[in-house]
């Protein structure tokens, strides 16, 4: 078996297994695995097969359209793009500090999005695998199976998601394609009546969130050895951290740790992201492979998202989630992909607590909505989206048109770590065995743990490496075309 599993030495002589599409992840992905006659694994790759030229799509647009346009990147986390674009363009309009009302309305919108996205992921995407088992009947191993077998749990998941969406509706103005956040602030506050209405279900929401944390903890305790081992591959961690090192999903400075938990950098302003994060390309993938510059392309892959955030921060400033986090990190650095599920639900609980705190804050109902200052030609906005660190970077000309757009989405950050996880699963579970649907689902389980959103992870038309391989009927390559990335 190849040690890295990235590239087989003689792929034409190997048996090819394709998993396409990877189910229950956003967008479309394809995994190829090359086996020899003894079923030894030689190569494992995750391919991105949907291609979106969103950066080019944004160029040439007036900057004030961008926070609305970018929501169409993704039907699952449009609010994250809406807010990241707004944050980047705050810099362009000179809004260095938002009004308290604008900052808190945006935070409420963001934590509503975190709550509904995490609820969707756990209750409707991940729980089928975790409740029924990775090898269970695929006809049952889906959200409808959960509805049938655990209707109360499924109902809670639906209602949690609905609650998050009501917050988004109130703060963004609409359930989808909202316009609430604008460069320099927001265009509406949250009235006292709206706050009262949103507060009514909070008791249930907090109870369901705590119940979900307990459920995933119980699932972990039942099979700790497997959860700890499955797909565990070492990588660094990257996230924003807030004041004093607090978990902050809306704003802060960049912090990274190496795979042993040592801080590589801290306090890095968003505008300096390009000094710390570099991107590599592979000829066989549309998705770039970012790495921490300090560690280089071979050793610098890193994780983002809940698992990284809970280990990168020093504390959570809400009591119930912090208590859960302390139990979570008590055993040392965690690299196991399945731990994403536990971390995600602790964040869901944190989001519910933050929402409770914000809804009690009268600043939400203030009337100072927008601020501005000296105009700049460039802006960078970073926030922690449900899946991880999301970077929006724009250059804007004097005529208000966007001349450059660079987006690094959460799934792209996780690309290297995700590959290592699925290769580790292949080593642990597939190597030397006849691949069955259940075994192949193990690969998908590892991918889903990262909650990838593949449809918005591919972008930058004209910038990425392209590799076209033509095979004859026997599977041997007869021609190839390659274009390297810029």
């Amino acid at each position, binding site marked *: 078996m190849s040690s890295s599993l990235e590239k087989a030495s003689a792929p034409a002589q190997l048996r090819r297994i394709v998993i396409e*599409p990877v*189910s*229950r*992840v*956003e*967008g479309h992905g394809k995994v190829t695995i090359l086996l020899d006659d003894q079923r030894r694994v030689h190569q494992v790759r995750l391919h991105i097969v949907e291609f*979106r*030229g*969103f950066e080019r*799509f944004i160029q040439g647009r007036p900057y004030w359209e961008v926070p609305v*346009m970018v929501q*169409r990147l993704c*039907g*699952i986390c*449009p609010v994250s793009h809406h807010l990241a674009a707004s944050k980047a363009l705050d810099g362009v309009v000179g809004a260095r500090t938002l009004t308290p009302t604008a900052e808190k309305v945006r935070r409420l919108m963001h934590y509503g999005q975190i709550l509904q996205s995490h609820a*969707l992921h756990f209750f*409707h*995407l991940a729980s089928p695998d975790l409740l029924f088992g990775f090898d269970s009947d*695929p*006809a049952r191993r*889906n*959200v*409808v199976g959960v*509805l*049938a077998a655990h*209707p109360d749990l*499924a*109902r809670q*998941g*639906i*209602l949690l*998601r*609905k609650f998050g*969406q009501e917050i988004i509706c109130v703060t963004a103005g609409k*359930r*989808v*394609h909202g316009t609430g956040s604008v460069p320099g602030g927001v265009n509406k506050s949250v009235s006292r009546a709206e706050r009262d209405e949103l507060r009514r279900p909070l008791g249930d929401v907090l109870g369901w969130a705590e119940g979900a944390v307990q459920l995933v903890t119980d699932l972990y305790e039942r099979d700790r050895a497997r959860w700890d081992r499955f797909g565990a591959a070492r990588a660094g961690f990257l996230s924003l951290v807030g004041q004093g090192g607090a978990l902050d999903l809306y704003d802060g400075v960049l912090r990274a740790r190496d795979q042993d938990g040592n801080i590589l950098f801290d306090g890095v302003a968003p505008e300096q992201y390009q000094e710390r994060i570099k991107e590599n390309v592979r000829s066989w993938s549309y998705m770039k492979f970012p790495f921490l510059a300090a560690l280089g392309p071979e050793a610098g892959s890193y994780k983002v998202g809940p698992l990284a955030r809970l280990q990168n921060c020093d504390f959570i400033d809400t009591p119930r989630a912090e208590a859960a986090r302390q139990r979570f990190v008590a055993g040392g650095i965690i690299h196991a992909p399945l731990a994403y599920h536990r971390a995600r639900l602790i964040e869901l609980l944190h989001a519910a607590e933050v929402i409770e705190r914000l809804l009690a804050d009268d600043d939400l109902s203030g009337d100072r909505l927008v601020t501005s200052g000296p105009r700049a030609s460039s802006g960078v906005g970073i926030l922690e989206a449900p899946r991880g660190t999301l970077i929006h970077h724009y250059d804007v000309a004097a005529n208000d048109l966007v001349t450059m757009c660079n987006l690094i989405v959460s799934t792209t950050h996780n690309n290297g770590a995700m590959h290592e996880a699925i290769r580790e699963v292949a080593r642990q579970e597939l190597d030397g065995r006849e691949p069955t649907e259940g075994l192949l689902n193990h690969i998908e389980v590892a991918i889903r743990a990262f909650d990838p959103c593949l449809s918005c992870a591919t972008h930058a038309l004209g910038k990425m490496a392209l590799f076209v391989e033509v095979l004859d009927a026997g599977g041997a390559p007869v021609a190839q075309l390659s274009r390297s990335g810029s």
Partner: protein
Amino acid sequence: MTAPTLVIGVGNPSRGDDALGPAFVDRAAEELRTFVEGGHLELLTDFQLQVEHALDLIGRARVVFVDALVGGDAPFVWRRVEPARDTTVSTHAMSPAAVLDAHRTVLGDPPEAWVLAIRGERFELGEGLSGVAAGNLESALVFFTATCG
């Protein structure tokens, strides 16, 4: 008061004819404004159907899912849809039948439901509706107004 008829237009407005669902809702808001303002009809759009859309069906007499159609009959297909277990439930989107099934499982029998699938031609990022799709949309709107208005 909950409007007895709900129309959910599904699609991404930035992906060419995938915008047919939201575009239908926009046109229906213009053409059927009196029904909307009178509380007889509610219009929603979303990128894709999700399990929580089952909650939007509560208290309805009828729901119509409007989506773009790839292939199939032009200008549109109008068909009844029943709750059904969707064992291919995947990614972050559900079929109308699966949303109805989620309603049945968690909340009880869903309302009468129909799919209005409007034929699209081009689904490229950044494109507007194709001329053919725009024509199909108008045909579907005339039919819908006569049938449900």
